[in-house]
């Protein structure tokens, strides 16, 4: 029973992490039809910088932990905005080139990170509470999972509020549906592109800092594996759908944890099987628009 509870809760917690990364990807793809390969790099850089900040202030304090998250979000947003303005915008409407350019960026960024911070993973530490566990129904849940869940819930709420209640959010929602009609209403969608990149970058940044605490280390490749899961989640959830990404994140992660616990560590594999099944049955994803 406690094993079940553990698997379930850690699944949701891991799903929270996936959501933090996938939310940005989904929005970016939904609005711009760009597959942002550099998303992992945003994540990794935010983690490194967040770690540097936390170290300055003392890693054990909650203040430095929260500050590192904030810094991570800002770094992610900044990196993403820069990427959009310098690399993506000039290639307006050339989607394949835009994807390729993000591929090149991820390539170069990872190499640069290795050059700056070395190839070995760096062990990190945070507030001691994170390393402890809380007991729920007989299962000992590592506290990092609670933080992940809270963060993801907050980000989701913030995103939904933004999309529903602000004009920019409205423009983005409309743009995801029909971008050319938005321009035909006299709105410059390019501003929305930058905004969506920035938002995605911020979410990825938060995800990066938290991922680092989750894995207890930071390395140049931190973003890469997470990115692949984020891609899978985005496809399963339906490209461009934020709620789809949320649902798929939890679904994929819980399944993964179950497979790891009960099917002998085949979690990664099961996820790909799930992707294949979803594609065979419903190619546009759970909540995606039918092409």
């Amino acid at each position: 029973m406690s094993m079940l509870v553990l698997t379930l809760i850690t699944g949701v917690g891991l799903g929270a992490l996936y959501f933090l990364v996938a939310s940005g990807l989904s929005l970016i793809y939904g609005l711009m039809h760009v597959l942002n390969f550099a998303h992992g790099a945003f994540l990794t850089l935010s983690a490194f910088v967040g770690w540097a900040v936390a170290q300055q202030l003392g890693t054990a304090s909650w203040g430095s932990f929260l500050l590192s998250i904030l810094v991570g979000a800002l770094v992610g947003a900044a990196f993403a905005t820069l990427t959009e303005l310098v690399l993506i915008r000039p290639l307006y409407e050339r989607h394949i080139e835009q994807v390729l350019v993000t591929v090149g960026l991820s390539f170069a960024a990872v190499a640069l990170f290795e050059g700056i911070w070395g190839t070995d993973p760096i062990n990190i530490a945070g507030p001691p509470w994170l390393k402890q566990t809380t007991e729920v129904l007989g299962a000992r849940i590592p506290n990092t999972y609670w933080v992940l869940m809270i963060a993801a819930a907050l980000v989701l709420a913030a995103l939904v509020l933004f999309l529903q209640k602000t004009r920019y959010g409205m423009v983005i929602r409309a743009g995801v549906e029909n971008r050319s009609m938005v321009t035909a209403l006299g709105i410059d969608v390019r501003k929305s592109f930058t905004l969506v990149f920035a938002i995605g970058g911020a979410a990825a940044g938060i995800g990066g800092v938290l991922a680092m605490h989750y894995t207890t280390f930071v390395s140049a490749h931190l973003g890469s594996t997470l990115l692949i899961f984020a891609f899978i989640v985005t496809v399963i959830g339906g490209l461009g759908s934020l709620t789809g990404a949320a649902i798929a994140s939890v679904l994929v992660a819980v399944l993964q944890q179950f497979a790891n616990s009960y099917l002998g560590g085949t979690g990664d594999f099961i996820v790909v099987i799930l992707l294949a099944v979803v594609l065979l049955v419903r190619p546009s994803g759970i909540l995606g628009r039918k092409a």
Partner: protein
Amino acid sequence: MSTPVLEVRGLRCSIAGQQVVEDVTFSVPATGITAVLGRNGVGKTSTLRGILGLIHRRGEVTLAGERIDGLATHRIVQRGVGYVPEDREVFAKLTVAENLALAERQRNPRRDFVDALFPDLVQRRAQMAGTLSGGQQQMVSVARALLNDNRLLLVDEPTKGLAPKIVTEVTDALLEASKIVPILLVEQNLEVVRRLADGAIVIGGGRVVHTGVAREILDDDDLTRRLLGVHAETAPARRGEEGSA
């Protein structure tokens, strides 16, 4: 004769490398409704989209004396062009109110005018546009274009797929609208054209093959058959406020 609101010279448009508009030249007067006629697939919709810059185009397009053919779509629209696309293209996941709010460009949009014209929409402000009927979506689409102080409306087949009663409502609305803004109207329904249009431009094979007074063209059965491939409506020419039977 006042200056035309829109002058198109030598417009050539292509979609994914395919030439869809060969060489189109015409003017749109600053008042009234000008119809764009032609058989299916001759390039009527592409002409409108080319004017707006939604597809790849070359040639001269002048709006109220200013060249707009080099501008991006949103800039053209900001200069005062309203667009009512074929198939309406309302945002299904936004409410009616949001669809309209999105379209508002100015500080004082023509809210009262639009609300008076489409009372049905006022009631449905909080409804998701995707759940509206075809006719109601058409109203939203037209309303969007009327909210701003536009110099010209480009309207593409507004009565397509609508029941006769709705067709009448839509044409009524367009007639009202034409009192405050000139309209370039692509339309296949010749009864509607007869009711609404002053001038007409006929397109064939990607070029303009005839221009003139709409009623005169439609009254000439041979001409109509030659240009449009159909018989003109045999109902007597009647342009005015009364709805058709």
